[in-house]
């Protein structure tokens, strides 16, 4: 009955009216200078002309088209959509943090460097490794850094033919993509039927060309590889670097340290485990922690604490001796680091350690309550997330994982990750995180059961879902076939 107010969707350039302004102009307070040669200047600048009030309403309305962790339960597997404490945003917004310039002399940014140094130390401690660089700007860039370190390590030892990197079939897409950007050949390794590494296949795969193994722990199937020590032993003995994708660190905090297990390098998506808000696709930060073997290769900068000649301590940006180089123009996503630091300090030892318990209980609770309604590909204790499947539902009622996911939207719940890991048919990867209450989980469980019933009784309801969003399902094929990627003036 509500009439769709179409002009909420109108684009800025279509809203433009010549002469309108969206901000105020500071007058020039110095004498006018000679202009540049006119040939260098542009003639027109066809940018929006919209008033401030209209911009505010446009973006405010648009924002409400989103689901978000602040408004919706968001059990998006592998993404750790936990509550992002508001105080962290305020800390990152302090003028003494947000307004400092990356090229300031070090003596004028000692507070910033101290914060980074402390966070480096915490991350090394949490992961049980030796050194940290906070330069990478997301998990994938951390992976790239890690794999470039592996490459540099082997080359440094003259091992030029270590070109193969093993990656489980369940791995996140960034793993093979990063390995490949780092110059490696990717060899895909199957998982066995309980979601662990297939030991046979592993043994068969390791050899002279082995550069390393990229492993997510717990795996993207939400399980902890019970062979982990053996896996690591095999890889290390074969001369490979053991890379840990730390996207799932939420399950391990205070339970086990990857470094203690024998990992050489781990990245942490600070925006997952350490609560940088996801921002509709970033920014994040990708800390990379290494053990002794890779220490000299860390990307720059790292912050070091040094004493000057008078014994006065100060912090300084340093380049590790054999650094693989810079990952960005400056020193990493500092704003995200302030948030991660704030988060770790707020929770402290007690709080950080408690995260994994609640995260894992919550996931196992969902698993225990939904395993009769959905397929459970791996019927074992899960860690912080659980993978269900709509395989039988699809076979019996023609309702697939996508339909279930979209129907959840009608109930105000964000869909889980779908069709990932690729190895599970009709996968629904559900990660509740520790910040959700039992009541919210019960609500979700109830809705999932209702949907399972609806799938039998009224599958159309699921095929048509979602129903009350600003758009129903969108034609992705058409988008890719005839890419319309930007505003253009309308034909008339």
């Amino acid at each position, binding site marked *: 009955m509500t009439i769709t107010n179409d002009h909420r969707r109108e684009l800025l350039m279509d809203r433009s009216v010549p002469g309108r302004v969206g901000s105020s102009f500071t007058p020039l307070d110095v004498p006018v200078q000679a202009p540049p040669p006119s040939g260098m200047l542009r003639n027109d600048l066809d*940018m929006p002309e919209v008033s401030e009030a209209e911009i505010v309403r446009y973006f405010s309305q648009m924002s409400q088209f989103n*689901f978000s962790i602040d408004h919706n339960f968001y059990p998006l597997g592998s993404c750790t959509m936990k509550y992002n404490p508001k105080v962290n945003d305020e800390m990152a917004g302090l003028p*003494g943090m947000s307004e400092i310039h990356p090229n300031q002399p070090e003596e004028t940014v*000692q507070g910033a460097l101290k914060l980074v140094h402390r966070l480096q130390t915490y991350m090394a401690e949490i992961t049980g490794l030796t050194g940290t660089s906070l330069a990478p700007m997301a998990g994938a860039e951390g992976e790239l850094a890690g794999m470039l370190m592996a490459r540099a390590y082997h080359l440094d030892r003259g091992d030029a033919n270590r070109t193969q990197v093993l990656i489980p079939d369940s791995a996140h897409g960034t793993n093979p993509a990063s390995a490949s*950007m780092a110059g490696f050949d990717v060899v895909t390794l199957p998982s066995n039927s309980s979601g662990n590494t297939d030991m046979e296949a592993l043994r068969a795969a390791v050899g002279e060309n082995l550069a390393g193994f990229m492993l997510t722990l717990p795996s993207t199937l939400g399980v902890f590889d019970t062979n982990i020590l053996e896996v690591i032993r095999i890889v290390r003995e074969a001369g490979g670097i053991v890379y840990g994708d730390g996207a799932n660190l939420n399950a391990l905090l205070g*339970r086990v340290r990857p470094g203690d297990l024998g990992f050489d390098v781990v990245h942490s998506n600070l925006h997952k485990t350490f609560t940088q808000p*996801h921002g509709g*696709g970033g920014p994040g930060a990708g800390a990379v922690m290494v053990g002794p073997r890779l220490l000299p290769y860390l990307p720059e900068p790292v912050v070091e604490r040094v004493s000057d000649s008078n014994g006065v301590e100060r912090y300084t940006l340093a380049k590790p001796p054999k650094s693989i180089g*810079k990952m960005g*123009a400056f020193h990493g996503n500092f704003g995200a680091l302030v948030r991660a630091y704030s988060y770790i300090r707020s929770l402290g030892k007690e709080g950080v350690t408690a995260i994994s318990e609640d995260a894992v209980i919550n996931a196992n609770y969902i698993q225990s309550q939904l395993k009769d309604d959905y397929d459970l590909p791996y019927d074992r204790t899960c860690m912080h997330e659980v993978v269900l499947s709509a395989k039988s539902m699809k076979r019996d009622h023609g309702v697939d994982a996508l339909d279930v996911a979209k129907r959840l939207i009608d109930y105000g719940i964000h869909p889980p990750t779908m069709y990932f890991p690729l190895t599970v048919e009709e996968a629904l990867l559900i990660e509740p995180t520790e910040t959700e209450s039992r009541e919210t989980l019960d609500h979700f469980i109830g809705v999932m059961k209702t949907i399972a019933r609806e799938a039998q009784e009224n599958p159309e309801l699921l095929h048509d879902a979602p129903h009350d969003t600003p758009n129903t399902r969108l034609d992705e094929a058409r988008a890719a076939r005839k890419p319309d990627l930007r505003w253009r003036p309308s034909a008339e």
Partner: protein
Amino acid sequence: MESTKFTSPYSPNTDADRRAMLDSIGVDSVVELFEDIPAHLRNPVLDLPSPLSEFELRHDVEAMAAENTTPGDYACFLGAGSYRHYVPAIVRQLAGRSEFMTAYTPYQPEVAQGTLQAHYEFQSLVCQLTGMDVANAGMYDGSTSLAEAALMAARTTKRSQIAVLDTVSPALLRVIETYTQAPGLDIYSVSSDNIDLSDDTACLIVQQPGFLGQMEDMEALSTQAHATGALFVVSADPMSLGMFKPPAEYDADIVVGEGQTLGIPPTYGGPYVGLFACKQKYIRQMPGRIVGKTVDTQGREGYVLTLQTREQHIRRERATSNICTSVGLIALMSTVYMAAQGRRGLRHVAELCYHKAHYAASLIEQIPGYSLPLQDTFFREFVVQCPIDPAEINRRLLEHKIIGGLDVSDQVLNGMLICCTEVNTREEIEKLAGALSEIGGAK
């Protein structure tokens, strides 16, 4: 006083909740849930500090912030890749809306039209500003945009050499080197009086303005690049495009830029947003997220992530890039900024920068011992040759509550790179000139 056993305000469940859930799960204790972890390594004691209350945390972080010298309290003339501009309040307020801030990457378009439409706007405005056909939804920062542009050029041309004009910033160059070390591309430097391109040169990379503020003859460079079949890759300062020619007019193939200058606070170097635009014909080689317009089942227009077969989650080791989480919120901020400044404001800000920088240069040039060794035309940055070590001058300027320009004495003898934007008032500029002449050549 009650005892204050630590309870996290972020995790709701209580011991009673846990007990009830463990019962439902069918285990006696939470310990059982972690039995897959090797027992001897389980439950390490972490050497982390104790929890802080919000009040204590604020004290702690504010104390560190206070150890930083904050521009705003100081006149600051730093640029060189990160620029201080006035950011209207609406940029913060709108980007701070939790619907934008706490949403994930818009994989579920029906519940992410806010983010998607905003990113389509971003792509559109980047195209309007650069004149290019298409743009993606942003890269980590301007440097990784440029590095990915080099990779893309190599992919597209199937050539293996990357020519980089010698005016490109050292930091950008370093990042290109990081990204290209493994694919085995050969990076080499050329100078504008000797543009040496081979038939294996994938692209010529030019930064405009150059690191030291230089403005190149872009038409000429573009022609030279294209003559050998190389792509012309331009790293443009987006703010300069408020007044200077857009790269499309000199036939750039790929245009990248540091979007920080468009409404993002310096934040000690990040998060920023890398702009990435190119000609239509190269879109399937682009890295990064791209939003496309389409229709829904009811025929209404809407937006989706598109051309995803380029990306890691589909194409895995054959993806155009490994990028996943990018900088969505920063792209949104710069979209609001571009919208707020708009046609008139962007030109106005660019012109303020231009006139203030030139005014500063004209004052400094008159100070005995100081000279401008490089430029005729520049935008908002210029090199000053100082009578003494610029690091020493900068130390002295701090006493005047001035953060001086960047020390570029490794590139120009006693060189200091000075930047003025619209936030540098006349008073600040004259104070700088006054302080420099006071410091003079004296030791």
